[in-house]
């Protein structure tokens, strides 16, 4: 029996390693090797390093990135956890709406999302023009304050999602015990509840930090001269004029270094602070005085409204009549007619590829998460780091690597949809892995041991006991993967071919050729496409939670 169990998990480990090596490590290594070989390039690389560290213009990008990401992570933690607690513990109206809407912020379709901030809050944006009639004006959206605002608003759902899932696994008895032992509520939170949700909380913070470190769309559009690592790197890598791959590699290695360090810090912390709990009765909703309830409602809806600004702007623009790049006030279905006429396949392509990638992510993700949480070893720690690498590395680099490796025998994937699937799968695998690992760290291993000792074979225990316990994390991991995959642009633009253009590619080309109407219409469909599964997810989760799962 023991032998068989070991065989299964051993082959899962092997499969996971092979997958990551074939689709991530090998392509990346090929990219790095090709950009470092050759006398001339090596010289350029050395020159780049000295250039990088001797000019404020360059090294300030590291400082800017670290500073912005740290502040944004802090902001996302505050907003995300507060909202998670408000929704989980207080009787707020419209919780399903709040949960779903908060997550929509994560789906800021490429380019056009950040653009909507300029449309509204730019120097001549709608809001500033409206305010100027009263002689008022808002502080500028450009520069680091604007970036910080957009980052917090866009990425707090990472913290919110993971913290909410973790809160659902805290048993009411934990709190009751602390309170009955005379611990005041605040201290109960700090000493009893916070430690249990800490792995999820830090996982959310990590995702935020890494996402903000790698985000280039926002600083590019509203940075106005403020450079961050990804904007500099994107400029050097995808450059109308060929660019400087060695400089891009220099910047890329720095980015990977910072993100890997953050990852290691979180892993270290989560391992040390992992507490196991059995959740029979989830935390109850608290009775609260009306004033506090009102304040929390205002806060929650305020946050969600700000988070919905980009999506709302896009939705409204998609129904505006356009002439070339210029939009006019009014109502028209013109943009939708154009997309169904010009690019109908992009929509079915996106659904097909995203659904398949998410299913694969969840299948492998759940198994890998189990390995990482239950069978800690050096090999598994390495596997963890390698999988998270996918998250830290810009899609463009992954895309180039996949083309270079899979455009030659023995395996040729370029020109087919499989290469898109591979990229989506490998780049979004970290989501289910992270959410499930965090969850497993809270589920007491004794539950599984009890099942095994009652005579249920280990693998059956895994299926019948562990998986149902992990269900909220699986769903939220799948939801995150779905949302981020459906709008994936950076590798799609390099990997798609012929009829396999996705919606994000179509949005990019429409924005690129100044057709904001059609781009908005496509983006609106994208938003709805992400919204419906999320909404359903929360309906399901909500019921399960009520049943005491």
């Amino acid at each position, binding site marked *: 029996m023991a032998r068989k169990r070991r065989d299964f998990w051993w082959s899962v480990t092997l499969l996971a390693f092979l997958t990551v090596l074939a689709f991530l490590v090998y392509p990346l290594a090929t990219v790095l090797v090709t950009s470092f070989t050759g006398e001339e390039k090596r010289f350029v690389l050395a020159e780049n390093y000295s250039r990088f560290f001797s000019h404020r213009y360059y090294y300030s990008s590291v400082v800017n990135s670290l500073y912005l990401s740290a502040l944004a992570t802090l902001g996302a933690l505050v907003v995300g956890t507060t909202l998670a607690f408000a929704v989980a513990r207080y009787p707020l109206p419209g919780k399903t709406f709040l949960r779903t809407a908060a997550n929509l912020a994560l789906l800021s379709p490429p380019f056009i999302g950040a653009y909507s901030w300029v449309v509204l809050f730019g120097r001549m944006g709608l809001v500033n023009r409206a305010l100027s009639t009263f002689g008022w004006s808002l502080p500028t959206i450009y520069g680091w304050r604007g970036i910080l605002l957009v980052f917090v608003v866009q990425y707090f759902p990472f913290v919110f999602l993971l913290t909410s899932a973790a809160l659902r696994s805290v048993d009411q008895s934990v709190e009751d015990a602390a309170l009955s032992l005379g611990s005041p509520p605040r201290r109960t939170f700090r000493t009893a509840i916070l430690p249990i949700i800490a792995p999820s909380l830090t996982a959310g913070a990590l995702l935020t930090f890494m996402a903000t470190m790698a985000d280039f769309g926002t600083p590019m559009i509203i940075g106005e001269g403020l450079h961050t690592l990804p904007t500099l790197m994107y400029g050097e890598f995808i450059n*109308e004029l060929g660019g400087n791959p060695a400089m891009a590699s220099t910047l890329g290695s720095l980015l990977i270094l910072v993100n890997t360090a953050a990852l290691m810090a979180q892993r270290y912390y989560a391992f040390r602070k992992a507490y196991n709990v059995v959740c029979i009765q989830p935390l109850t909703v608290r009775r609260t005085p009306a004033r506090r309830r009102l304040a929390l409602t205002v806060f929650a809806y305020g946050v969600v409204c700000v988070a919905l600004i980009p999506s709302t702007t896009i939705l409204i623009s998609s129904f505006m009549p356009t002439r070339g790049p210029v939009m006019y006030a009014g109502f028209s279905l013109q943009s939708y007619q154009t997309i169904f006429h010009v690019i109908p396949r992009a929509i079915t392509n996106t659904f097909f590829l995203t659904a398949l990638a998410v299913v694969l992510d969840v299948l492998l993700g759940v198994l890998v998460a189990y390995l990482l949480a239950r069978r800690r070893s050096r090999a598994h720690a390495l596997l963890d780091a390698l999988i998270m690498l996918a998250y830290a590395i810009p899609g463009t680099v992954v895309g*180039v690597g996949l083309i270079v490796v899979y455009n030659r025998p023995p395996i040729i994937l370029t020109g087919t949809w499989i290469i898109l699937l591979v990229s989506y799968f490998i780049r979004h695998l970290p989501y289910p892995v992270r959410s499930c690992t965090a969850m497993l760290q809270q589920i007491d291993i004794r539950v599984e041991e009890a099942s095994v000792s009652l005579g249920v074979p280990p693998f059956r225990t895994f299926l019948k006991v562990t998986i149902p316990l992990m269900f909220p994390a699986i769903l939220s991991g799948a939801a995150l993967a779905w949302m981020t995959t459906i709008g994936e642009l950076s590798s799609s633009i390099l990997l798609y071919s012929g009829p396999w253009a996705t919606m994000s*590619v179509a949005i990019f080309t429409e924005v690129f050729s*100044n*057709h904001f109407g059609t781009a908005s219409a496509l983006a609106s469909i994208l938003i709805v496409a992400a919204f419906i599964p999320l909404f359903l997810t929360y309906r399901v989760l909500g019921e399960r939670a009520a049943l005491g799962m």
Partner: protein
Amino acid sequence: MGRIRGWVLGMCLVACLLAVAAGPVGAQGKPEDSVVVYSAFDAHGVNAVVAAFEKKYPGIKVSTVVAGTGEIIKRMEAEKERPLGDVVWSIGLDAIVDKKGLFEPYLTKEAGSFFPGQVPADRVWTPFTTMPYVIMYNKKLVSEAEKPKAWKDALDAKWKGKVAYADASKSGSSYILLVTWLSIYGKNDAGWKFVEDLLRQSKVLPKSSMTYQGVANGEYPIGLTFEQAAFEYLKGGAPIGLIYPSEGTAITPDGSALIRNAPHPNAAKLFLDFTVSKEMQDLMVDRFGRRSVRKDVGSPAGLPALDQIKAINYDLDYAATNRTQILKRFQDALIKTQ
């Protein structure tokens, strides 16, 4: 067994049909039944031209990849061992000149109808449409009286921090502007002083599209960009105006080229010829506001004819061969002034 034979027969039949349907056999050799086009052109323009091509050559299926010049070049370099594309169409000329090794020289049969100087000596690229570079201004923020008339007018103190210009190391059109100023004010310290002064006035943006979008939306009063982008906003009714600077300006085309070792070289040639045929060039002018490279096609309605615009002699070879040094010095100027 019978089943297999049926399949084989079926396949033969299909192959014969395809061969018959493959259409006219050009002088260059038999065209293949498909062609893969990489283009940085507007998606709507791509669709219009592809539809017309497939109508004219029903046996050739066109598949397209639409992306920016930078992405296209990255993709081609990654695919170098086994190219998947056949032809690039309407991308930045500098990129083609810079990556000559990726392309196959070709002289289109339409070249005789082009304006003079539109075909390079090495024949590596074919022009698609051509455009002048302009100063674009927002009429709500800039009055007719104070609008700049020359490149140097942008140095006026009142435009400090209000001139939108994309980073020349990131945008092909911005690089052409940079070389334009160097050509006018000297390819020496004097010219670079002008560039530095201009950069001190400017908001240097990471993408050329942000320049014309920003001016059209009123984020910046003045932008330095190319005519066609500005013209689209003008046609759409945005409150903007175009200025052809009095010192003269560059008028250069975007380019197409055959990809070296392409899987469908003959169909690619047909496609490339088709993009510069009279009917397609007419379509570009009438529907997309582009300027034709052909002598027998007029200017878009609402734009001055090319011979009314003061042109400089834009030295493409200088721009291409000295690119690394020019961009390095530009980067230094940027570091110094930003």
